[in-house]
């Protein structure tokens, strides 16, 4: 029976205690020794055939007869008051069916005290008006015929400027979210820690605004059936969109249906209802026609979200033996005009190492830049770059092996709460990775003319334990096949495949005999957002519980039909076997004989274990080649070892690792949104000047998985794999660049410009003693422990 419990739910680095209605998980975890047929083996993607034939229907591909096309007129200014909007000319253009502005749209509150169409625009790209027309071309022509008068307001795009008391205010409440103190965490006594340190290091790090650039934009199609809204949308959370859109439009939840069958990626930027969905719904209502809204790549880059750019001041105190005595981080995250403060930049400093005296001060600051949004391990990617660059610097200064320094400061327990970990094989990841990467052989300096080779490493910590609520239903059909139905969505990670494997394993059916339906709020029960690396650990146990319930019902009917006790029955490959007496019967025989009486299994995710910290861990080793004359950086090899508990599908988990590393390489070396300081507008809102990695930028990626079930975290023993792989990549590359070229670039991306400037500096003025050694000193490499 369901009951109300307090459970700790961790999401993207933030832990929240909350009340949850849960069904106590009746399913015992699969033990490490359990022999599983389908789980743990490579399984090709469910839906793969549709993808490779072009038959997969993404939101982008949804076409409804009579559908109109919507285009949005956006602010060209970073900050202004809209004085007037004249739409008369646009309305008369042939083929224009509806125009929406603040004058005729309902006053729907959006983001604090502003509105869907607000009198103030706060970044270049803010929505000002929308047009629905017979074709995209006409809609676009109409945009040019809308005349808007603005009163320009002073703007601020630099977060440190924005923190000053006299800075232009982006929102009335002030620019620093939560007030001028920021978000402070403290343990121990920081000053004492520094006092007891032999060395104190202090550095400034900077990370850039990286654009998600999901290939499928934030698109949607809205259609009304009477008073019911059907919304196809590219989202990471169908239920979240349902709730958000219903609230915005004042509709009861059962009048909104959200569908997302195939999804062209999110990376964190599509976590709930967006303005575009509400605008499409309003225009569909106004025109009584289905409306498609498909943003251009430029709009996507302006308004679709970016990783919070950060500035981080990190101070570390260490004893002579490398023991961390104090860590102090002051971080400033630029959330743009409408971002949130959800980026836990201080997470790695707080919880990666065993350090008694720690203080983190996180500031999240509004500016008139495009809004920030969660981007694959928000905060941790940025924070890990600073912390692990610092650790590398400390190691070199102390003539210690960087890996040894990490082991000296290894945290056996969660340093924040003192809780034990459900499992922590980070030391094993270090060892395995070091061996694979040839860490101990790296002392041999490798030089080929101007090309210098180097190896660097960095650690990973992240949540990924998932939690309730999450539900699934399994229905057995009369021919022995099954329908697995959940409200989750597959954002490209392989969710459908993994859930089918779990259901097939528990039910004893062949995977191909199970069809999964996801991404339809009408069909499946509630499922959480596909973010925070929590889909598999949240949904997996729910699916397994549903399958178990269906299996038990099936076996109890089979036992009656076979006249044996249910306890002696098991199912494999669609065959029910009784041990005593020895008998077999096909599942389809049982279901056929019960006819259209349907076995329906219901499953829910149980609560997380109390007093245990669930974390994923890993380590990456990057090998780079730096051309010290041209500043070219080539990543030649990345070794990754991660722990996600039990691996359900090595094929898809491997893809997650490779994908995270590829994005990490982009973040480390080339990706950056540029904003013109003079006008506050974006310069590279496209895929030509905003660079993402191509196939030629990708090195050999070798990965190993610590494939060991975490039996205490949930009934499938799995943790999430989506975000961990991107966390250490940039830091490992930055450290490898140092190892290769003797320059430490503390601002991402590590471009040719920065390398050449750093090398130029070294040539001009050798760094003072005690600082990082330059290339000339490089041959005197510290001995490795």
């Amino acid at each position, binding site marked *: 029976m369901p009951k109300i419990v307090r459970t700790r739910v961790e999401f993207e680095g933030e832990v929240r205690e909350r009340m949850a209605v849960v069904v106590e998980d009746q399913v015992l975890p699969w033990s490490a020794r359990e022999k599983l047929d389908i789980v743990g083996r490579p399984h090709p*993607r469910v839906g793969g055939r549709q993808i490779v*034939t072009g038959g997969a229907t993404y939101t982008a591909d949804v076409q409804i007869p009579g559908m109109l096309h919507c285009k949005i007129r956006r602010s060209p200014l970073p900050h202004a008051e809209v004085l007037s909007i004249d739409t008369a000319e646009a309305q008369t253009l042939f083929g224009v069916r509806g125009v929406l502005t603040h004058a005729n749209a309902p006053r729907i509150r959006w983001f604090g005290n502003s509105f869907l169409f607000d009198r103030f625009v706060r970044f270049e790209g803010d929505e000002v008006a929308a047009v629905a027309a017979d074709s995209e071309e006409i809609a676009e022509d109409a945009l040019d015929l809308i005349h808007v008068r603005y009163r320009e307001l002073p703007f601020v795009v630099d977060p440190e400027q924005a923190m000053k008391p006299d800075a232009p205010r982006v929102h009335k409440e002030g620019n620093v979210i939560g007030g001028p103190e920021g978000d402070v965490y403290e343990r121990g006594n920081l000053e004492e820690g520094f006092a007891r340190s032999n060395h104190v290091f202090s550095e400034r790090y900077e990370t850039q605004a990286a654009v998600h650039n999901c290939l499928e934009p934030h698109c949607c199609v809205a259609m009304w059936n009477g008073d019911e809204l059907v919304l196809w949308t590219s989202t990471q959370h169908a239920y979240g969109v349902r709730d958000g859109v219903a609230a915005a439009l004042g509709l009861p939840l059962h009048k909104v249906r959200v569908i997302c069958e195939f999804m*062209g990626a999110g990376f964190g930027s599509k976590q709930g209802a967006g303005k575009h969905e509400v605008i499409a719904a309003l225009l569909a209502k106004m025109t009584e026609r289905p409306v498609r809204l498909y943003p251009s790549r430029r709009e996507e880059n302006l308004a679709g979200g970016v990783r919070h750019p950060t500035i981080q001041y990190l101070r570390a105190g260490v004893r002579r033996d490398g023991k961390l005595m104090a860590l102090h981080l002051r971080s400033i995250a630029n959330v743009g005009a409408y971002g949130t403060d959800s980026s836990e930049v201080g997470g790695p400093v707080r919880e990666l190492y065993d350090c008694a005296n720690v203080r983190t001060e996180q500031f999240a600051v509004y500016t008139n830049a495009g809004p920030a949004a969660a981007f694959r391990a928000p905060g941790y990617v940025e924070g890990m770059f600073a912390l692990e660059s610092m650790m590398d610097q400390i190691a070199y200064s102390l003539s210690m092996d960087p890996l040894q320094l990490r082991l000296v400061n290894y945290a056996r327990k969660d340093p924040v709460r003192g809780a034990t970990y459900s499992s922590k094989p980070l030391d094993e990841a270090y060892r395995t990775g070091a061996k694979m990467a040839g860490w101990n052989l790296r002392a041999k300096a490798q030089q080929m003319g101007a090309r210098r080779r180097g190896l660097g490493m960095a650690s990973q910590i992240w949540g990924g334990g998932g939690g309730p609520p999450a539900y699934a239903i399994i229905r057995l059909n009369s021919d022995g096949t099954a329908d697995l139905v959940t409200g989750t969505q597959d954002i490209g990670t392989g969710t459908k495949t993994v859930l089918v494997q779990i259901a097939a394993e528990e039910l004893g059916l062949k995977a191909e005999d199970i069809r999964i339906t996801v991404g339809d709020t009408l069909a499946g029960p509630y499922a959480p957002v596909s973010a925070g690396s929590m889909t598999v650990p949240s949904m997996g146990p729910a699916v397994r519980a549903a399958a178990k319930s269906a299996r038990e019902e099936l076996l109890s009917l089979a036992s009656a039909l076979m006249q044996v006790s249910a306890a002696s029955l098991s199912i494999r490959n669609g065959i029910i076997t009784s041990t005593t007496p020895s008998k077999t019967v096909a599942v389809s025989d049982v279901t056929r004989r019960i006819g259209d009486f349907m076995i329906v299994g219901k499953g829910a995710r149980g609560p997380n274990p109390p007093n245990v910290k669930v974390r994923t861990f890993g380590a990456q080793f990057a090998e780079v080649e730096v051309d010290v004359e041209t500043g070219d950086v080539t990543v030649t090899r990345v070794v990754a070892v991660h722990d996600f508990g039990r691996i359900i599908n090595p094929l898809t988990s491997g*893809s997650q690792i490779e994908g995270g590393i590829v994005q990490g390489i982009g973040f480390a070396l080339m990706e950056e949104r540029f904003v013109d300081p003079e006008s506050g507008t974006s310069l590279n809102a496209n895929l030509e000047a905003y660079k993402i990695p191509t*196939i030629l930028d990708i090195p050999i990626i070798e990965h190993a998985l610590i494939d060991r079930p975490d039996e205490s975290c949930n009934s499938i023993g799995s943790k999430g794999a989506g975000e961990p792989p991107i966390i250490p990549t940039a830091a490992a590359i930055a450290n490898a660049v140092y190892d290769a070229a003797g320059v430490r670039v503390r601002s991402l991306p590590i471009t040719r410009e920065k390398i050449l400037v750093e090398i130029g500096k070294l040539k001009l003025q050798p760094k003072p003693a005690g600082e990082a050694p330059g290339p000339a000193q490089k041959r005197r490499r510290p001995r490795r422990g």
Partner: protein
Amino acid sequence: MKDTVRSGVLAQRRRRGPGKLQLRLNVNGETYEVMVEPRRTLLDVLRDDLGLTGAKKVCDRGQCGACTVLLQGVPVYSCLKLAIECEGKPVETVEGLMSNGRLHPLQQAFIDHDAFQCGFCTPGILMSLKALFDRNDSPTEDEVRQAVEGNLCRCGAYSKVLQAALSVARANEQE
């Protein structure tokens, strides 16, 4: 002088547009007639007029490769081709890759090697590779990389794309 004027007038009559006009296109061996403006791209015609939504619209500026189709056998970005330029020229899209209900070996290899994640870039990558394999059925690793260097994959499935393509190349070599 007179001649020039006269030919100029005649020439002006050859102008087509800016309104809709009838075009005849050959896609995957089928002939289609559509009524579109000269400004409509091949990509938009494929997707919105013919319902062939395999080729994807991502950047719409020739900067991503998701709209790659073959025009007269060579890969092009269909977002930078006007439909009117493609009259009478054979177009191949991912929808035409299967033959007799069977997957193309590249398609099968993509499934077997998990050579995609969200799959939005996949039709474009498959068409770039199809063009490569049409002229060279057992390409080297470098040739495969060069063939898909004009296709961005944001999920980062590149190494598996490479493995998938090379598995087909090896199979072809052994034949």
